[in-house]
């Protein structure tokens, strides 16, 4: 019973933090754009509103896909140690996390493709291409850390950096951190790697047919994705944290970097994005990997 409660609490916590980040992110961007910006709790209002609206679906796959999408990301979230806590005692295996995350994206892709709108399908095709683009450098970075630590457990990698700030992988492997940051930018679908939702090109792509609670679920998925992705980076590079508050703060720092980059970059075309990801961050990651191996 306690386990069940724990799992639910972890899930809700991730959603809460993710939405909070999204709200603050919007505010920060607004300030960069010399605007006042929405209140930081705007994301909660939006989601509440979306869930209270009637929504439009094309067939059962849309429902199935959206549920699968949020479910997959929540499941991923349950594997990520937050300040040393994990929902259920299990090995926090990085590869499992990476693969589980994919089910979320697959669910989303399936739901939006079920609507039969070409815009949405183009968006999905771009998103999957982008995924291939960023997974390769990101995995290369992870590979370096895994080989260095001799374990693929996120928890152990995080624990190995305990102590002073000089133990952080961020300081020890700055190149890897830079590569991971760039890959993270793409992973979050923020500019310059947001070709998949480009509103001016394909009318917001995957979101084009989502309405009401489907859009709400997509929002929540994005929120959890932000949480999971920043948490992975914090665990990999910033040594986790001793308490939840510090952990969230570190996550927020990571998120803030992506928001800053987001605000001042236009978007790549998809092939340019993939080429970029396979040259610059991949190159950096490979150099780092060689440094670790030698």
């Amino acid at each position, binding site marked *: 019973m306690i386990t069940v409660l724990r799992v639910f609490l972890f899930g809700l916590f991730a959603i809460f933090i993710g939405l909070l980040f999204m709200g603050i992110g919007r505010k920060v961007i607004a300030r960069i754009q010399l605007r006042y910006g929405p209140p930081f709790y705007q994301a909660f209002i939006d989601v509440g509103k979306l869930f209270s609206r009637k929504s439009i679906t094309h067939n059962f796959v849309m429902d199935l896909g959206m549920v699968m999408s949020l479910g997959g990301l929540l499941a991923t979230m349950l594997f990520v140690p937050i300040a040393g806590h994990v929902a259920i005692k299990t090995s926090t295996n990085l590869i499992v996390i990476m693969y589980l995350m994919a089910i979320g994206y697959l669910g989303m892709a399936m739901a939006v493709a079920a609507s039969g709108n070409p815009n949405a399908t183009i968006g999905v095709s771009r998103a999957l291409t982008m995924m291939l683009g960023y997974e390769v450098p990101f995995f290369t970075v992870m590979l370096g850390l895994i080989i260095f630590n001799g374990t693929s457990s996120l928890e152990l990698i995080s624990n190995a950096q305990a102590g002073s700030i000089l133990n952080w992988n961020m300081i020890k492997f700055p190149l890897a951190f830079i590569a991971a940051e760039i890959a993270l930018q793409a992973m979050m679908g923020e500019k310059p790697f947001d070709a998949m939702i480009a509103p*001016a090109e394909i*009318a917001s792509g995957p979101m084009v047919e989502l309405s009401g609670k489907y859009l709400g679920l997509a929002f929540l998925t994005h929120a959890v994705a932000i949480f999971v992705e920043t948490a992975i980076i914090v665990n990999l590079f910033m040594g986790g944290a001793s308490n939840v508050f510090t952990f969230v703060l570190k996550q927020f720092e990571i998120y803030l970097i992506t928001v800053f980059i987001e605000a*001042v970059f*236009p978007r790549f075309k998809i092939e340019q994005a993939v080429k970029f990801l396979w040259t610059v961050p991949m190159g950096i990651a490979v150099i780092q990997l060689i440094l670790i191996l030698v």
Partner: protein
Amino acid sequence: MDAPSYMLSKIAEKDNLSVYELFFGPNHPGMHGNFGYVLEMIGTEIVKVRPNAGHLHRGFEKLMEQKLWVQNLALVPRICVVDPDPNEVAYCTAIEKIMGVEIPDRAKFIRTITLEMSRLTSFLMGMGALVAALGLYTPMYIMMADRDLLLDLFEWLTGARIYHIFNIPGGVRNDLPDGWVERLNEVLDILEKRLLEYDKLVFENPIIHKRLKGMGYVSKEDAMKDGITGPNLRASGGAFDVRVDDPYAAYPYLDVKVITQDGGDALTRAVQVRLEFEETIKLIRQALKEMPEGDVRLNLGNLSMLKVPKGEAYAKVESSKGEFGYYVVSDGGLKPYRVGVRGPSLPAGLLYAQKHLPKMKIDDVAAWMASLAICPPDIDK
């Protein structure tokens, strides 16, 4: 780039099922104004385009025949909302040509200043649209806010932010208010400073260069033949500027520098706008300095009972998007007999859509539109 497209269209001919259609507009976030392209696509590549104009057709040319000469002043700025003043000036100039009157010099200078300010607002909007189409919202927001600085000045001067109805047959409605010129100078200073920020954010951004380079190439010969005018023509190397070649308002007294480049692609056009923006600020400064004192309007009697003698005239002005022309035919009555409007966007929006968009990717449509500064209202009228 040519070979795959060729192969794709071969496949398309063989098997029409593989073609699908995307509706780019009229209700599309990448579309500025109410306009549509129906794109036939293979993959993400466009193979055929069917322009879908007319959503903004209000029948201006017919409406103008129904209204008094001066009433029409309320209509003309609405033809191109982004850049309203050239419409007013062109319409007034045509009337003045037919009537054979010469407006006072100060009026000419004030007209010039409003025209150039309007050009600035339009350039800001155009650059904003271009960068927004590429997903760069920050400068877009700032550009829009900067545009508001100018709109405030317009409001001070004319009482309206957008539809000024300031230029009237015989001059302008009123003289510049006190303190207005100083404020304008301040605003120009701000804009000049901002331009450096835009340079950093936009024109020196490698991604922008990557996206725009080589897109939508127009050669000088084609541009001249096909009626592409304005910055688009000058970016292809055609040294044509109505302000110099067929001068109106106070341009004969000013040094208008015609900037030409020979890239002809979207990047060149974007840079062209940026260069002309700088030039425009200089021009306003010069006009402010050299503005003579004197009357600002001719006394043409009761304007609402204005009768224009029988005759015809074509007046063209250089708007921010190119040659804007009004062809006015008068039968000597209280209302125009016929007004024909030449908008600058038609060749680009309809003809070049069919020339450029095939072989282009869906990614580029919005940016292409913005780079050619296509303004749907002046196509539809």
